[in-house]
């Protein structure tokens, strides 16, 4: 098999260069950038798929610089291949969608800019997934951060978008700082910056190992969107153009997950039980808070962004379960948790990408992201509605779709973990299981609201009433992703066969061969613990639905249409149930989390007010109680340090001289 990766990077660079050269002709620039991107993603996806199907993992050197001795080495281990396939599965539809979507959303020159940045971003993410050394990895990581920030600030006329990009950059650099520190320590201990040496597992030991774990946990956790490091995510993801939002939520946060896998779970030696517990706890916290905040949103893209935090939590919970099993030497059980986590990585990319693309179509057709102004779109945009509904059902973990398959596997990992552990600490598993059940049910409530208020009943504004269906270039990618939701849900055996290979490549993990019993049935557990055959289930549901259809045809095909009963009044969009009202009961029940503030003002007489204004908001707990004090103290320190920033060049030169002298003395003293 020829190594496709250098070709993929070549194609991407050529597309970049050509589209930069053609910036003066935006239409060509756009077509070229996205066509090149699709081709390159196809190549990387094919390379990844080949490895997952059993080909020898390729490795080599992408680029080297003789004078400095730097070489960007790459290696396509099965874990990297999995993430590369996830990336391609979403990047191709997103690029196709962009060609239809961006010209409507942005002025031509800016579309060209987005096309270029899109390619840089994807190239950087691919490089992150395949980098085989510290320097290359950090370089790609930073390139990814910067190009994402540029894309977030695409519409930089809006102050909130500029702020979103700034918060994203600030938070990302806190994370990158942790990564640089951690990797420097590891590299100096290992004596080489190559990943096989750095991440061999035996580099650090004892307390240092724990410190390194914490540093990397924070560093990668920022990208993965784990609570409480998530504050940038709900700002940045909605600000970008919708196809980029899809990529950010679907794949970019997975770079953090990839790092957590590669370094925290499998790069520092056998994980400790406490590390797994840390993952599980943070995972549960992220999942629950993510879905609760999502439920409170009335901006469709912000809702989707918060739900990304929830799904990141589920992914971390699976990894945590795997690590806990690994720490007690149970390689087969670890494989179940790892597989659940990685399965959800793919599933979340597919359905969250689908939902963001659908939301983009809605925003394009109506010009608003506020679902309180939408409604009735199922009759005006039937295809978008159908695809969005598939995504909404999948993300709610409903059977026959892919979200259910990975959450089912996650339950298996937790419950088998309980069976396999004999100490008191095993109570963490059922507690996590109950939280997982709560999270899933809340997600269902959240997406009933998101779909129901946006697409059903009467339109709540002129814009929604006049909405038109999206063009075919935008519908086709959604159709692809929606069918992926269905296929990945019906045939979990396929996925688990590939994931068995990925898991087997990780140190200490020994997947049981019967995990994927056949394409149709999966049974990841000892003996008769549990199994799942979605195709059988689908057949049963289809048969029963046919029965329902036959029963309901008893009186024939006649149907009478009439207006909805309005209790004698006229029913209009004003009397429909609103999104705020829908989530109100849950907001009141979980009031301790939201700490809502309400303000009701009535104008006019007490009992017959002329006008009532109502304002409600929830308290951004983390922003107010964690980040505000933090920024305040950082700014205070910066203010103090202003004394040495005199603005005179002479002073600065003197600092350089003094520092050089101090370094010389320090190094000399050490000799």
């Amino acid at each position, binding site marked *: 098999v020829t190594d496709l990766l250098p070709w993929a990077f070549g194609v991407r660079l050529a597309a970049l260069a050509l589209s930069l050269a053609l910036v003066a002709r935006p239409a060509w620039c756009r077509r070229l950038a996205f066509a090149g991107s699709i081709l390159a993603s196809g190549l990387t996806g094919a390379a990844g798929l080949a490895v997952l199907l059993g080909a020898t993992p390729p490795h080599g050197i992408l680029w080297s610089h003789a004078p400095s001795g730097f070489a960007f080495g790459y290696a396509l281990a099965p874990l990297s291949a999995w993430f590369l396939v996830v990336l391609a599965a979403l990047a191709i539809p997103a690029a196709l969608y962009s060609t239809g979507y961006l010209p409507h959303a942005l002025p031509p020159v800016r579309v060209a800019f987005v096309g270029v940045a899109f390619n840089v971003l994807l190239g950087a993410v691919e490089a992150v997934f395949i980098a085989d050394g510290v320097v290359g990895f950090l370089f790609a990581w930073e390139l990814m951060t910067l190009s994402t920030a540029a894309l977030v600030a695409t519409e930089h006329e809006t102050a909130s978008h500029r702020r979103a990009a700034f918060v994203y950059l600030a938070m990302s650099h806190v994370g990158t700082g942790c990564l640089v520190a951690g990797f420097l320590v590891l590299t100096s201990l290992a004596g080489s910056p190559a990943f096989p040496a750095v991440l061999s597992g035996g580099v650090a030991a004892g307390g240092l190992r724990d410190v390194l774990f914490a540093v990397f946990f924070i560093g990668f956790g920022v990208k993965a969107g784990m609570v409480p490091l998530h504050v940038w995510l709900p700002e940045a993801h909605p600000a970008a153009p919708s196809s980029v939002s899809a990529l950010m939520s679907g794949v970019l946060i997975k770079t953090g997950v990839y790092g957590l896998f590669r370094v925290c779970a499998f790069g520092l030696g056998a994980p400790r039980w406490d590390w797994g517990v840390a993952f599980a706890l943070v995972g549960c916290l992220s999942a629950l808070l993510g879905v609760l905040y999502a439920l409170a949103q009335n901006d469709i893209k912000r809702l989707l962004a918060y739900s990304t935090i929830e799904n990141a939590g589920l992914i971390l919970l699976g990894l945590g379960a795997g690590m806990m099993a690994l720490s007690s030497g149970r390689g087969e059980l670890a494989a179940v948790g790892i597989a659940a986590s990685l399965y959800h990585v793919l599933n979340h990319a597919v359905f969250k990408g689908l939902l963001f693309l659908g939301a983009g179509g809605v925003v394009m057709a109506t010009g608003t992201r506020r679902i309180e102004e939408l409604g*009735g779109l199922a009759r005006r945009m039937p295809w978008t509605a159908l695809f969005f509904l598939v995504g909404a059902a999948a993300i*709610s973990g409903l*059977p026959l779709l892919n979200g*259910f398959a990975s959450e089912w596997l996650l339950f298996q990992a937790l419950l088998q973990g309980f069976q396999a552990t004999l100490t008191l600490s095993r109570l963490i598993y059922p507690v996590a299981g109950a939280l997982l059940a709560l999270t*899933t049910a809340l997600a269902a409530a959240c997406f009933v609201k998101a779909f129901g208020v946006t697409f059903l009943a009467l339109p709540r504004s002129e814009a929604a009433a006049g909405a038109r269906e999206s063009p075919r270039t935008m519908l086709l990618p959604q159709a692809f992703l929606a069918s992926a939701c269905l296929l990945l849900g019906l045939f979990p055996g396929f996925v688990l066969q590939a994931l068995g290979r990925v898991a087997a490549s990780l140190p200490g993990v020994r997947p049981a061969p019967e995990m994927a019993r056949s394409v149709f049935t999966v049974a990841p557990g000892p003996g008769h613990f549990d199994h*799942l055959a979605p195709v059988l289930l689908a057949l049963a549901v*289809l048969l029963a639905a046919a029965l*329902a259809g036959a029963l309901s045809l008893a009186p024939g095909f006649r149907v009478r249409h009439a207006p909805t009963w309005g209790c004698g009044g006229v029913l209009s969009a004003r009397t429909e149930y609103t999104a705020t009202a829908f989530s109100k009961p849950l907001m009141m029940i979980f009031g301790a989390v939201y700490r809502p503030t309400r303000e009701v003002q009535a104008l006019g007489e007490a009992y017959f007010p002329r006008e009532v204004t109502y304002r409600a908001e929830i308290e951004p707990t983390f922003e107010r109680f964690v980040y505000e004090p933090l920024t305040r103290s950082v700014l205070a320190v910066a203010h103090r340090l202003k004394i040495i920033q005199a603005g005179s060049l002479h002073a600065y030169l003197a600092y350089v001289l003094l520092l050089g002298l101090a370094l010389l003395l320090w190094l000399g003293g050490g000799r």
Partner: protein
Amino acid sequence: LRLLESFAGGLLQAAVLLALAPLLRGLIKKMKAAFQTRQGPPLLQGYYDLAKLLGKEPVRSDTSSWVFVAGPRLYFATVVAATLLVPVIHAGAPLEQAGGILVLVGLFALGRFALALASLDTGSPFGGMGASREMTVAALAEPALMLGLITVALWGGSLNLGELARSSALRGPSGHPSELLAAAALFIVLLAEAGRVPVDNPATHLELTMIHEAMALEYSGPDLALVEWASALKELLFMTLLVNLFMPLGLSASARPAALAVAAALYVGKVFLLAVAVMLVESTNAKLRLFRVPELMAVSLGLGFLALAIRFL
């Protein structure tokens, strides 16, 4: 041949449970009336209603879309499919190859999702109210349900209901106090899932108190028949699950007709006892305010956790 056998068994089981479901509702209604020294509707009223509704032409709202039509059909389909996962009189389930507890809970969630969306589709505020409350109560009941079920399942060593029935039919009830606690926890969830007092009131049409009725309010004719039938079946199914998990007594391990007949008689008796319990709770309690329901669910969750703790510590 085994596949064909289980296919036939599945058809039979679904048909029998479908046929019995309206009777259960009628029975509870009749007993409730007797408890209140009323006459009450005829025992078979449920069947008369279904027959009438299935013969009527449906009226659908102008503002609704295909979601409104698909909702009741999918709801009905998920509940009927769920009957195939639960052991009734035989120690095994016709479709146990497809999955266990998690799939069962998932199917209920899918049906609920479909019906909640459909009820939002008419633009009537009642539909929205019903959907919002249904999803709220379901979200609170879900962890309690899961905790109660996994307590039983982990002790039996399997999440598959057929597998569990076989092991418990062989072992018999253990009499461990944790089973009592888990049964109490799941009984509370049953009241919530079946829309019974104190969580919901199946007899009410007062807009401010109803949950399930509000979701079905705009339905008529065969559409309404499907919703009502599926709800009755869901209740029967939940009761079947409960009695067979905690009183496996009588589940027949063999498929001999004589054994199955005994098992069927015992099954009817067990479900009757549970129906009496539901009736007593309904008759002696007032419906809770919506915002007191979380406390009830917390009690259920607490019971489930206690059951788990005393069983495994």
